């Protein structure tokens, strides 16, 4: 796993205690770390270089604020600068002008144009537009079928393209078809192509001339490396793209490509693809991607992950049940199973800010998946009566449970202890209004606190 930038800077600045001001000398090493962090996140070499220079300019001469360690202060400067570069103007789709408007999706092979076209159609449909999907990829086998199937599942009409047609002709026809069909938004899914393929790049330019798109969206894979700059630059040069969609952000890529692309094209990143579902297209949050590029804990991702696995109905039922009957060992077991669904414990811990530093402490117990299996086994070896009322667990019963679960009495005691501790916590929380319900799930909050990163 990556060490986060703040942890690394923490070490760099250890020797710097007592310096009241960030100077050119004492900041050099820190800037080297910043640069490494950016490069590890796939930010383009030249972009990273320039970025570090800007940060140096801003940081040098700043007084070290009392409450912040110098390392944190540098992180803050870096983070703010990143957000500024990534963000800028708010990015919405430009759907005004002559109707029907045309949105053109362009990009390399496998960047996710077709899937994103489907997602975009769904998003626009939800906003009351009448989208019309146009498959213009006549090269990749079954690309037209793919968009047709997506359109069917969304209830969005798809232009009947055929592989023996010329893509430019398809697009022209599609505009007429949309006009007569009463659709107001065309989404053209073009074939993936290499930026060095002059012939196919020329085809895109011809489509552009033929349909006069209001938006040309460059679809880019968040996992792209150094080459992102070259590709984005070429697409922008040939087509003057109007925005960027970053896909596959639900993986663990740090997404430095976002910065590179933004820097060379100066076009806003409008959406990010967050999953394979057709509703997994979200607006772009500069602050979250900035934290991610720097390898800092991503609390919001953690919350989202939790939301994804925690069954909402179950959680609500649990909250209600807790009010009436309290938290039983059965519920405890269910919670553990849900935690397991979120992925490996180490991965979860990595997402909690500051956790990576705690992990380095010697006495910190390592998260152990086997422990969870043990806990499950222990609870499974209890009778229903015992699970509902742990108070009856006397020494005799504990011995039996230990035997039944293949553990020791100590293990059983440990489970019961952590359960009773949790029980205590729950009681405290359920005393407050909205306590546990909001904690374990509750209605999904659409609005998230801004700039929550540390």
């Amino acid at each position, binding site marked *: 796993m990556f060490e986060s930038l703040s942890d690394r800077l923490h070490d760099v600045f250890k020797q710097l205690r007592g310096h009241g001001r960030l100077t050119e000398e004492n900041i050099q090493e820190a800037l080297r770390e910043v640069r490494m962090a950016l490069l590890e996140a796939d930010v383009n070499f030249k972009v990273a270089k320039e970025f570090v220079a800007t940060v140096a300019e801003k940081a040098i001469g700043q007084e070290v604020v009392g409450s912040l360690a110098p390392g944190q202060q540098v992180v803050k400067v870096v983070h703010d600068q990143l957000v500024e570069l990534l963000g800028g103007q708010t990015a919405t789709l430009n759907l005004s002008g002559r109707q029907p408007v045309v949105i053109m999706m362009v990009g390399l*092979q496998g960047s996710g144009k077709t899937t994103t076209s489907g997602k975009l159609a769904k998003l626009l449909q939800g906003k009351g537009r009448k989208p019309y999907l146009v498959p213009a990829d006549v090269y990749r086998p079954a690309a037209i079928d793919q968009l047709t199937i997506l359109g069917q599942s969304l209830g969005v009409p798809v232009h009947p393209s055929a592989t023996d047609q010329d893509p430019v002709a398809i697009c022209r026809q599609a505009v007429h078809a949309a006009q007569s069909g009463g659709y107001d938004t065309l989404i053209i899914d073009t074939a993936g192509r290499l930026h060095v393929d002059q012939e196919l790049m020329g085809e895109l330019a011809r489509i552009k001339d033929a349909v006069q798109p209001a938006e040309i969206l460059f679809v880019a894979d968040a*996992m792209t490396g150094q080459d992102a700059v070259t590709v984005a630059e070429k697409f922008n040069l040939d087509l003057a793209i109007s925005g960027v969609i970053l896909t596959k952000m639900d993986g663990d890529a740090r997404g430095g490509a976002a910065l590179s692309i933004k820097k060379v094209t100066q076009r806003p990143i409008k959406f990010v693809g967050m999953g394979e579902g057709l509703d997994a297209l979200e607006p772009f949050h500069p602050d979250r991607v900035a934290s991610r590029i720097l390898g800092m804990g991503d609390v919001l991702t953690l919350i989202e992950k939790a939301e994804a696995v925690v069954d909402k109905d179950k959680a609500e039922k649990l909250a209600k049940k807790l009010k009436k009957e309290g938290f039983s060992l059965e519920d405890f077991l269910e919670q553990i199973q849900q935690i397991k669904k979120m992925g490996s414990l180490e991965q979860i811990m990595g997402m909690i800010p500051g956790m990576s530093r705690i992990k380095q402490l010697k006495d910190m117990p390592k998260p152990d998946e086997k422990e969870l299996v043990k806990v499950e086994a222990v609870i499974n070896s209890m009778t229903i009566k015992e699970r509902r009322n742990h108070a009856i667990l006397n020494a005799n019963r504990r011995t039996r449970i230990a035997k039944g679960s293949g553990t020791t009495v100590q293990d059983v005691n440990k489970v019961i202890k952590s359960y009773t501790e949790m029980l205590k916590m729950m009681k405290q929380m359920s005393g407050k209004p909205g306590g546990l319900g909001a904690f374990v799930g509750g209605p999904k909050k659409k609005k998230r606190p801004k700039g929550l990163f540390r």
Partner: protein
Amino acid sequence: MLSWFKKKIGGAQPLPPEQAAGSEAPTPVAEASGQQEDGASFFLRLKDGLSRTRKTFVRQIDALFLGKKQIDAELLEDLEEILIMADIGANTTQELLEKTREQVQRNELADGQALKTALKEMILDYLINADRPADLALPAQTPFVVMVLGVNGVGKTTTIGKLAHKFTQAGQKVLLVAADTFRAAASEQLQIWGKRVGVEVVAQQAGADPSSVVFDALDYAKPRNFDVVLVDTAGRLHTKVNLMEELKKIKRVMDKKIPGAPHEILLVLDATTGQNAISQARLFNEAVDVTGLALTKLDGTAKGGIVINICHEFNIPIRFIGIGEQMEDLRDFEPNEFVEALFAEGEA
């Protein structure tokens, strides 16, 4: 052990499967008569496919080395830029440069040219694994089952199409299995490839359980004497726990049906991917023990330097590289020729 397609790709020299399976001595097919010629043209074609890679990478390096008689800090700095821009990664670049610096200090490297040779050898060192050769090993009994996996959009299905062509050219009877039941029209895509190459495709309706598709496909393959079964799995991000579990299950089902299968687990990586490729390799490897890599989309300007780290860290050999959209655009990976082509002087 046998080299399957080594040096055969151009030559019409199909090897009957029974002969291949039965031959006792591990004679590499490479010794065939047409080899000399084929080897040369292969080299040319590889270089041709890599020409863009080569142009940017090699030109830059050459420009750097030729003008410089002396090795100084500036040269090393420029070298760092080139290596990082090739996606080799910040850490590995530091490592390589550190070694270079040491050699310079010991006065082992006289000039830029010597530095280049040393660097070439270091990269080669990362690419070659002594204990895991890049040639595919032939199982004692057919079918030879290959499971192809990777994240979304790296080119799994295309690679399978090309692989099928390669195997067919080598005289093998190939079956394609559409175990990507998730993505819209994925099985149609594979079926079109099947038609192009002229091989059978087993597919079920969309949404079917991939494990059951594989189960039925192997049932179908066994009595019909297929030599090679290529299984196309759905693209998945390596961080999705449940999807990785699904992969494990597919693998278990294969082993149940044909003990020892899958004989090859091929992870497809996109050359444009940056440092995340390491995470992909790590997690896929943890889940199902990847036995080989295919590096696709090398015909763009991306250099795919990240594979150096993956070869090195996980000891997984690179088997194929994809350099275009045509059936023939899949090449065996040759570390020597790969690095050679990368560093070749700007002829051609």
